[in-house]
């Protein structure tokens, strides 16, 4: 329990101008906002700073843009770190994190499937939760839930 807080890492020095901001987030050691173009460098730097465990990768649809969040855990610091980056709403794509954290594989597949974020260099980007050939991205805000009577619509979806 004598771990140093993650904020003691000098992120600005480590990441240079890839870093946009370091925001506080309750219960974690902060949220790093970084430039999507430098994703691979950021992942590598964060991994080498001790954050070996990837907890989750998630996409959020903000209608005008999309956000990808990465949650990381460091066993040495005993704390979580958030990475976050904004992507444009048309053709959102970012480099894959699977080369740094192999566990990102299914998380990224799910994010692609649900929020339509393309991960460049992902080894196996195909449907995971929905059947093959499903052409919608359900967690987009534009995708509305159906009333149960809309069976026809549902059948067409699948």
């Amino acid at each position: 329990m004598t771990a140093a807080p993650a904020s003691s890492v000098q992120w600005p020095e480590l990441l240079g101008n890839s870093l946009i901001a370091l925001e506080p987030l309750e219960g974690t050691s902060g949220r790093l906002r970084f430039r999507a173009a430098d994703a691979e460098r950021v992942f590598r730097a964060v991994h080498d700073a001790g954050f070996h465990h990837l907890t989750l990768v998630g996409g959020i649809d903000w209608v005008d843009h999309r956000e990808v969040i990465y949650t990381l855990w460091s066993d040495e610091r005993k704390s979580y770190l958030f990475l976050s980056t904004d992507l444009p709403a048309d053709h959102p794509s970012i480099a894959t994190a699977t080369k740094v954290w192999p566990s990102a594989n299914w998380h990224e597949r799910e994010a692609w499937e649900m929020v339509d974020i393309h991960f460049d260099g992902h080894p196996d980007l195909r449907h995971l939760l929905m059947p093959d050939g499903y052409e919608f991205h359900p967690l987009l805000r534009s995708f509305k839930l159906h009333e149960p009577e809309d069976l026809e619509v549902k059948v067409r979806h699948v």
Partner: protein
Amino acid sequence: MAGDAAVPFVEIEALRSREFIPAAKEALSSMIAEQGQSKLIRPVFNWAGRNSLFPLHWGLACCAIEFAAAFGARWDAERFGVVPRSSPRQCDLMIVNGTVTWKVAHKLITLYEQMPEPKWVIAMGNCATGGGPFRTAYSVVPGVDKLVPVDVYIAGCPPRPEAMLDGILRLEDLIRLRKE
């Protein structure tokens, strides 16, 4: 022991003729068919059918845990002759114990078709009955009766094991009333 054992066995063979066997076969099968319809035999088979329901051993979602609990020591569904079998070929009852998604719908229909007649379906829980809390979701079939014919619906989310056993007993009542 009378007789001098000189009568050869051939005499029995002589009973056989080209017409005899087909005729006997036909008579026998028509007799079986009549017996199958008769009031004597049908209740026996009906009794057997309703007292030995083998459900398919599979778990869809939450209700599967209560399905399993019903086979536990406290409720012991085997008292009623209900023994889950893993192969659909050996089942007569499919208990749909959970949310059915569109992805699994095809498999569910296949499993249903693999079960030999006569067969029954119990929709266990609200999800199988009508989608339950997930009825608005994009991936959920709102009720398994959209896919296969359902005989008994059990309400509850999830139904208690007693409710499941009650559903099976209701199904037994249904089978008892079967006319065909």
